[in-house]
């Protein structure tokens, strides 16, 4: 678009049409005092400090005046000067002059305004100080709200509304008593605030300020270690310590925005419980951890190498299982699977995506021919209709949740949500489909039925780009809305409405999460989603597609790197002679031919004595895997277990050797986020003395087992990956310095592929899969009448090893609660906060109750973050037959108040 030319204080400026005079001036380096303006927010025009004179229009606020061709602006006149000066003086008089002890010192807009208008002590002295004493709210562990220091610019209110979509803050009272407050003026922790801190970073003064703020002396650009959103972080470092976190404004994923975990959850890195010396199991103890003695690296690595080699020699390589972490870097996962295959000599290598998103790989591959997100996350703003299936992004992928809320409010995106719980986004959905857990396939088939019945399918797309349509169409015949309503519990009318809304949109996008995959028919659920997209031609275009929301930061990468028992890196076939030959030549080894064990199967093989040892990197199955009593038994029964960890987790406590590893902030590498972008993770600080990076640990272990890894740094490993994996052949560190690259990236000139399948599918055509509903493995019955479904809480992550070592997060969410619908609670005589016992066929746990209609009647909810409340003692180990992912989302349980525990 053409630029608009205007003059501001006689400087000729070319500005983008649609921007304001204030934007244009600030962009040209001309300061106009302002307090209520923020570039990320819609203008409010309330501080009235940005007044300028526009020829022909008089005095108006610059932040509300769009630029126009030929505009002549003056930023200063005697009148404007007086006006600003009086307003600034009065504001400053209300404000405690505590600059030197204020977290915003030197970054404060009020200081800037004051310096600009020139505050004169003698003039201020004419006004006498009055005392406005408003209490400081320091209930939030991460920041304070001091209304005394507030200039009432409203930036926090607008941020919470426009950016966070939470609406925790608004103005209260009027006139001089006006203040920013939560609903009912409650303390922040009691309000609906989610502690994302977005308001804190935007507050122009010290009214909202981070606690314990320390100005970093340098910043390191890296990627958040938590969920699969993959937000860009800037770690603020002083000396060798991380003192703060900022969102990376250049990241296309989060554009500077963070959630509570990313912004405030990095403290675990500095936690005193971090392991710092290798530990060897010893009943006599000797370290700060009972049952373990400290050992030198030499001794610990030597013991591990000898033990693994001995078991391999005695029982064969297949007696050893390796589990990589989808929280580690790509380089680590690659190196780990190479270690298992080339050094140990087995394909028994897997990663913890097995228990979350493996059905995405099987399901999406079955339909599209490759198992990854089809479209960039940016399409959330580009679509017309967003269909969320089995995910609660506001809790599990909060920054995506925020983007969805903004897309709804700002871009008019319509939302459909299928989820058994009335999640926050379900409240904005039209319609919300409260699907009975375990009946996704019936629902998805039902939607397809309606689309076909009403002729809303995309015939051209189906004919040109798909196969298998006839048998699919025939299959969904049996899924008329009435029948589906009976299976799923959703009113037939809502099923029809949702089908029409999804199919009639020009662009519709599906996002799904673990609510689809973690079922005994998880792979089928994924196929059901993909079928819908094919049926309506919602593939290969902007604002369409099917995107899994990955649980952990590097679920995508761990799978891409071949930490899987059935494929080599980049999903290359184990059976293909040419591929095997390529790897054997490069790795200088003989590759095992047979597919390895999926780790969820491996526990059974331990019991049968076929698996005797395991090497686990950064994963805690003793807490996160279902039916954990069996997992624990299996781990305890191993002849030898070696674990790389940051903390002595429940799994590590069962190990023979524990090797202390560096955290994400202490090493180089890359993560791949939910939309396939390979992003650089950078070392910000040195690991605590005594820790080594996983790359070093694995290399040294290989050395001791007689295999010298040629690539021993992250950058060299990426070069090796590029050489071995065609999909990533163009990905190199120097390129990643500039910006992330999404695979496929076929050579050094390829800029990566943000969107898949624009022209064709990997197999040419995509394949409709005719699938059937099957009841979940465990239906509620008279003895176990409720369905337990599991998931995450906003403040915590996975087994809690990181978040629960971040004190503030534990303050916000100190303990687990069982969510139960008021109807069920009344029937069972369970009251809010009371201790209840939850029992399944496998075990029982105690937990306090939270009575809430977020759960549908008949369904109860627990997260699995707390060792004290081991939810997975209840869940079952029935697996999805294709992906071997367990059915976390449906277990039959009964709930009863604990007699005696609730007295007083």
């Amino acid at each position, binding site marked *: 678009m053409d630029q608009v030319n205007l003059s501001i204080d006689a400087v000729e400026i070319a500005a983008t049409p649609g921007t304001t005079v204030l934007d244009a001036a600030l962009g040209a380096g001309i300061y106009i005092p302002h307090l209520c303006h923020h570039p990320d927010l819609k203008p409010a025009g309330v501080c009235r400090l940005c*007044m300028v004179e526009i020829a022909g229009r008089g*005095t108006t606020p610059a932040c509300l005046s769009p630029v126009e061709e030929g505009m002549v602006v003056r930023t200063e006149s005697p009148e404007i000067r*007086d006006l600003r000066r009086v307003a600034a003086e009065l504001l400053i008089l209300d404000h405690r002059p505590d600059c030197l002890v204020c977290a915003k010192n030197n970054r404060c807009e009020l*200081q800037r305004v004051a310096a600009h208008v020139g505050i004169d002590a003698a003039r201020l002295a*004419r006004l006498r100080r*009055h005392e406005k004493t408003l209490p400081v709210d320091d209930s939030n562990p991460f920041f304070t709200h001091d209304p005394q220091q507030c200039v*009432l610019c409203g930036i926090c209110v607008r941020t919470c509304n426009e950016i966070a979509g939470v609406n925790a803050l608004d103005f209260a009272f*009027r*006139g001089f008593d006006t203040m920013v407050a939560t609903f009912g003026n409650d303390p922040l922790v009691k309000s609906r605030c989610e502690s994302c801190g977005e308001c804190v970073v935007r507050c122009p003064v010290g009214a909202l300020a981070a606690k314990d703020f320390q100005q970093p002396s340098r910043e390191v650009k890296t990627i958040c270690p938590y969920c699969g959103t993959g937000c860009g972080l800037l770690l603020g470092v002083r000396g060798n310590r991380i003192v703060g976190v900022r969102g990376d404004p250049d990241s296309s994923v989060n554009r500077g925005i963070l959630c509570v975990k990313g912004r405030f959850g990095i403290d675990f890195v500095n936690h005193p419980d971090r392991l710092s010396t290798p530990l060897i199991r010893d009943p006599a103890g000797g370290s700060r951890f009972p049952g373990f003695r400290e050992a030198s690296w030499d001794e610990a690595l030597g013991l591990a190498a000898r033990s693994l080699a001995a078991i391999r020699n005695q029982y064969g390589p297949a007696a050893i299982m390796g589990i990589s972490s989808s929280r580690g870097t790509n380089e680590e996962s690659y190196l780990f699977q190479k270690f298992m295959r080339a050094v140990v000599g087995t394909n028994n290598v897997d990663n913890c995506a097995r228990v979350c998103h493996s059905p995405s790989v099987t399901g999406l591959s079955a339909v599209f021919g490759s198992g990854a997100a089809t479209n960039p996350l940016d399409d959330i703003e580009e679509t017309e209709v967003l269909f969320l299936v089995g995910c609660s992004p506001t809790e599990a992928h909060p920054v995506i949740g925020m983007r969805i809320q903004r897309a709804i409010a700002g871009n008019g995106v319509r939302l459909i949500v299928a989820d058994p719980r009335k999640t926050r986004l379900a409240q904005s959905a039209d319609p919300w489909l409260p699907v009975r857990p375990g009946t996704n396939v019936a629902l998805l088939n039902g939607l397809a039925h309606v689309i076909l019945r009403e002729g809303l399918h995309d015939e051209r797309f189906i004919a040109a780009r798909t196969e298998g349509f006839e048998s699919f169409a025939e299959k969904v015949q049996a899924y008329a809305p009435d029948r589906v309503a009976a299976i799923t519990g959703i009113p037939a009318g809502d099923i029809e409405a949702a089908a029409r809304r999804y199919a009639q949109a020009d662009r519709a996008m599906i996002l799904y999460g673990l609510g689809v995959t973690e079922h005994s028919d998880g792979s089928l659920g994924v196929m059901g989603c993909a079928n819908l997209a094919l049926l309506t031609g919602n593939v290969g275009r902007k604002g369409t597609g099917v995107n899994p929301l990955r649980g952990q930061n590097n679920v995508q990468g761990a799978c891409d790197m071949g930490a899987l028992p059935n494929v080599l890196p980049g999903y290359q076939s184990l059976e293909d002679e040419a591929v095997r030959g390529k790897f054997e030549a490069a790795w200088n080894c003989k590759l095992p031919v047979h597919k390895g064990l999926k780790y969820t199967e491996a526990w059974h093989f331990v019991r049968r004595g076929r698996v005797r040892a395991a090497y686990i990197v950064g994963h805690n199955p003793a807490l996160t895997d279902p039916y954990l009593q069996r997992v624990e038994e299996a781990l305890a029964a191993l002849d030898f277990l070696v674990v790389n960890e940051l903390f002595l987790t429940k799994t590590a406590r069962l190990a023979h050797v524990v090797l202390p590893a560096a955290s994400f902030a202490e090493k180089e590498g890359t993560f791949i986020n939910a939309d396939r972008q390979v992003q650089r993770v950078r070392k910000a600080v040195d690991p605590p003395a005594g820790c080594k990076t996983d790359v070093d640990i694995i290399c040294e272990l290989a050395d001791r087992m007689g295999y010298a890894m040629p690539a021993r740094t992250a950058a060299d490993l990426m070069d090796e990956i590029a050489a071995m994996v065609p999909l990533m052949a163009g990905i190199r560190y120097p390129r990643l310095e500039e910006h992330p690259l999404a695979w496929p990236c076929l050579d050094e000139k390829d800029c990566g592929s943000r969107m898949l399948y624009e022209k064709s599918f990997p197999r040419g055509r995509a394949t409709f899969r005719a699938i059937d509903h099957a009841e979940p493995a465990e239906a509620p019955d008279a003895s176990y009448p409720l369905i337990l479904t599991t998931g995450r809480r906003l403040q915590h992550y996975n087994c809690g090893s990181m978040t629960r070592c971040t004190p503030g997060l534990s303050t916000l969410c100190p303990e687990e609660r069982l969510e139960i619908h008021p109807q069920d609670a009344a029937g069972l005589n369970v009251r809010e906060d009371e201790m209840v016992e939850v029992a399944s066929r496998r075990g029982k746990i105690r937990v306090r109750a939270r009575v809430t209609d977020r759960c549908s009647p008949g369904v109860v909810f627990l997260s699995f973050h707390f060792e004290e409340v081991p939810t997975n003692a209840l869940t079952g180990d029935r697996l999805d037959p294709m992906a071997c992912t367990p059915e976390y989302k449906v277990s039959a349980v009964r709930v009863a108040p604990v007699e005696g525990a609730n007295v007083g």
Partner: protein
Amino acid sequence: MPYEPVLLANINKKDSHTLAVYEAGGGYRTLKSALKDKSPGDILEVVKSSNLRGRGGAGFPTGLKWSFLPEKHPGPVYFCVNADESEPGTIVNRVQMEADPHQILEGIMLSCYATRAATAYIYLRYEYPLCLKRMQAAIDEAYAAGYLGKNILKSAFSLDLFIHRGAAAYVCGEETGLIESLEGKRAWPRIKPPFPAVEGLFRKPTVVNNIETVACVKHIVERGAAWFRSIGTPADPKDPRDPGSYGPKLYGLSGHVNRPGCYEAPLGITVRELIEEHGRGVWKGRKAKAVVPGGLSTGVMTAAELDTKLDFSGPLKVGCLGLGTACAIVLDETYSMVDFLHNSCRFFAHESCGQCTPCREGTSWSLMMLERIKAGRGRLKDLELLLEIGDTIGIIPGTTICGLADGAAWPIKNAIRKFRGEFEEYIKRTNPEGYMETEPVEAMATVPK
């Protein structure tokens, strides 16, 4: 020839608020004939050429305001009647609503017909319970008689009319504060543009007019634009920006007079006429010291300025804000101007909605200073400071989001400039040593230079 009241013609009749009495006096005949013979455009034309200016305070030409409604908009268009009447000293809307509600309803119907609005809201001051009762009864009668609802009098015109009880804040009377309040939000006035005619209630084109304005519309449609223009002060040929002050006007009178009340007269009577002829003079045989011409926001004039005409341009000539609501408040010679200004500052500080820095800070700081002065701790330089605040919080158009700050500024500026001697004398008398209670605050310790 004595002036024949038009707006208040009915009020002395027994049961003047009922439909029967209103119809017996010829009520709703204008509506009937207009729906039969006149197009909406005809009514817009006659209102335009009458030069009717809004009676709510700002004096904006009503026909012009209506013509800002976008022509091609798919609608709906909303019509809001401003009956929030909260300007101190102002009681004229109340008299009309209590005594002659059907006259107002007929005005609303004609105005909605002209603006193609099918839904109208009367935003009624919370503290007017009798108005609520009378207006609601009148609306019920009108529905029953077919003057409201679908296809009024079998024409194509339909109108639904609702009363919305106000939220008991002055700022709810500001037209965009009113709209926000109607939408169920805090009455924080909106940034303009967009003006309500383009994007108002529920983001649709909207007209906001005062009760008395719509009452005038009824008479203009009935008697014609020429009749309306025959009353009042004609435009000043020397001032191109003066469109004249035409038509009958309701004047309010309160304070230290013998007969306070609501009176009708042609626009342009002088303050003196209002006090002497309608109010029967200042009470207790005293003289007037000062008069607020048209609601507190308009500022204050001295005894020497009483020959000022109360039309849209008169008060401007003596340094006041304008005609405002034409409701004068008389202060007798014994009344302290310090008390007056303290009262005024208290009102505006209490009513500022708090969004704009100059208004929120300026109104409260001026109140705090007046409190100190009143309590005998004032300093002469406080007067300078008050003037600085008064001169900056509202004087440049657009300094603040709505006109409240401007209204708060005029009493400060007028009272101190016109009665400076009295303020100085008071401070010297009550605080001979220039006593200061608290230490002055220091400038921000670390403001970077």
